[in-house]
C-alpha cells in the first residue's frame, strides 16, 4: 500500500508523512507514505492508493480528485486539527478507513 500527503511545496507534508510512517511501523502496518507537492502528484499518481490534501491546498481538491479518478487513487482532505498537530496516528486511521471504503 502506498499513500501520499500533498501540500504546496512538499515542506509541511514531509514532517507529517514521517509521523504517519512512524505510527504505521509501531502498529506493524505495511504502508509507505510519501510527501509531495500537488504538481508532482499528477506525474506519479499511478503509484498510489490514497492521496491526502493538506488544508492549505484544499481549493485544489476537485482537480486532484479528477486525476485520482483516472488512476483509481482515493482522495480526501486531512482533518485540520490532525494536520496542525502533525498527528500521525489520526492521519493513519484516516488512510486506513479510506482504503477500506
Amino acid at each position, binding site marked *: 500500500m502506498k499513500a501520499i500527503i500533498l501540500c504546496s511545496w512538499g*515542506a509541511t507534508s514531509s514532517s507529517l508523512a514521517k509521523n504517519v510512517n512512524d505510527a504505521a511501523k509501531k502498529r506493524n502496518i505495511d504502508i509507505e507514505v510519501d510527501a509531495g507537492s500537488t504538481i508532482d502528484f499528477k506525474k506519479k499518481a499511478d503509484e498510489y492508493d490514497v492521496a491526502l490534501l493538506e488544508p492549505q491546498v484544499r481549493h485544489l481538491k476537485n482537480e486532484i480528485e479528477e486525476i485520482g479518478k483516472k488512476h483509481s487513487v482515493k482522495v480526501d482532505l486531512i482533518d485540520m486539527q490532525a494536520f496542525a498537530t502533525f498527528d500521525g496516528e489520526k492521519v493513519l486511521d484516516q488512510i486506513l478507513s479510506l482504503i477500506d471504503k
Partner: protein
Amino acid sequence: MKNNSLMDWMENKLMPVLAKIAQNVYLQSIRDAFAIFALPVIVTGALFLIVANPPVSIEWGFIQAWARAIEPIQGQILIPFQLTFGLMSLMVAFGTAYSLASRWDLDDTITGIISMLSFLIVSFPATDITQVPFGDVLDYLGGQGLFVAIIVGIVTAWIMRLFTQKGLVLEMPAGVPPYVTRTFRSLVPFFVTTILFWAIEWIVWSNFNVTLPQLVLDLFKPLVAVSDSYPAALAQIVLMMLLWSVGIHGMNVVSSVAYPFWMTQLAANAKAAVAGEVLPGIVTEPFFHMFVHIGGSGITWPLVIMFLMSKSQQLKNIGKTSLIPAVFNINEPVIFGAPLVLNPIMFIPFILAPAVTTTITYIAFATNFVPRTIIQPPFTVPVFLGGIISTGSWRGALLQLINLIVAAIIYYPFFKTYEKQLVKNEMEALKDNE
C-alpha cells in the same frame, strides 16, 4: 467556533471566487516558473553578488580588506552571477511553457525548450547577430525580459496544444520507437513557433528599432512603477491575508501575478549595486517574505510564543508543533491549528499586523533607513539572518525586530480574548466528561 455572518460570507461567497483564481492554470504556471525554475539561479547568483559586493557599510576590518582584495577582479567574480541571476528570464521562458504544457498533458520538456529558444530569438536585434556584443543582450535575458518571457512561454504552449490537439503533427507509423516519434511530433510546432517569433522580432526591430523585450518593457513601465508604490504593497498584503483567512495559500496566489514585478525590481537593484548606483526598487519578494511574513504568513512568530505559554491546552499543543516550523517561516500548523482560518476574533489582527508591518517596512526602505533589498534568500531563512542577507546590513535585522514587536502588540489583546473563549470551552468539556 462561534458563527458569524462575516465568516459565513467569507466561506460561502468569497472563498469560491478566490479558489477559482487560485486554480487558474496560467497563474499557477507563472508562479511555478519563478518559484521552481528561476529561484535556483537567483539564489545561486546571489552568492556571487555577495562575494563581489561585501557589505562595506559594516566597518569591520576584514570586510574592508575583502572589498579591497576583490576590487581588481570584480568582473570575473560576477561571471557566475551574470550567467545565472542574469539569465532569469530565460529560465522563466522555459518554466512558464513547461508548467503549462505539463498541466495540459503535452510534451513539457520540448515545449520548454522551444519557448526558451524563441525567447532568445526575440531578445536579439534583427541584424547580423554575430556582430552584437553579448552585454547588449544580457539585460533582456535577465530582469528586463521577464514579461516577454512569460508571454513567449504562454504562446508557445498554446501553439503546442493547438497542433497536438488538431493532430497537425508528423505521426509515425506504429512500431517506430517512442523517442523517434517524440522528435517528429515536435518538429511542426517547433518550426511554426520559431518562424512566428523570428517574424515578430524582425517586424518590431525594423519599425521601432528596439527588440521585443525593450518594447514590452516600455509598455509595462508605468505598471512596474505603480507596483513599487505603497498602495500596491498594501493591496498585495491585504489580498494575501484575505486569501489565508479562508485557508488559501495567499503568497502562492498573489505571487503568481506579482513575481514578475518583484523580480524586475530586485534585478534592477542588483544591477545598481554592481554599478555602485542608488537602488531603485522597494517592493520585492524579500520585502514580504523577509520583513512581513516573519515566522510564516501574517507575521505569526509572536503568536507561536504566546501559544506556548497559553493556558488553553489546544493552543499550547499547537505552539509546540509550530515552534520548529516557525524558525523556518512555515506556519501552516498555526494557521490551521489555532485556527486562524475563518476565525472571527483572530481575523482582525491576522490582517492588521501584516498590514501595519508592511507600512513600517515600506517607510524604512523609502527613507533609506534600511538599505533596499538586493538579495532574495530562500523564504525559509530564519529571522534576523534573513534581514541581514537580503539588505547586506544589520539594520535589516533591526527592522525585523521592530516588526516583530509591533506585531506582538497587535496580536496580544486578540489572542487573550480568543484564549479566554477556548479555556472556557475546554473547562466545560472537562466537566462534561466527569
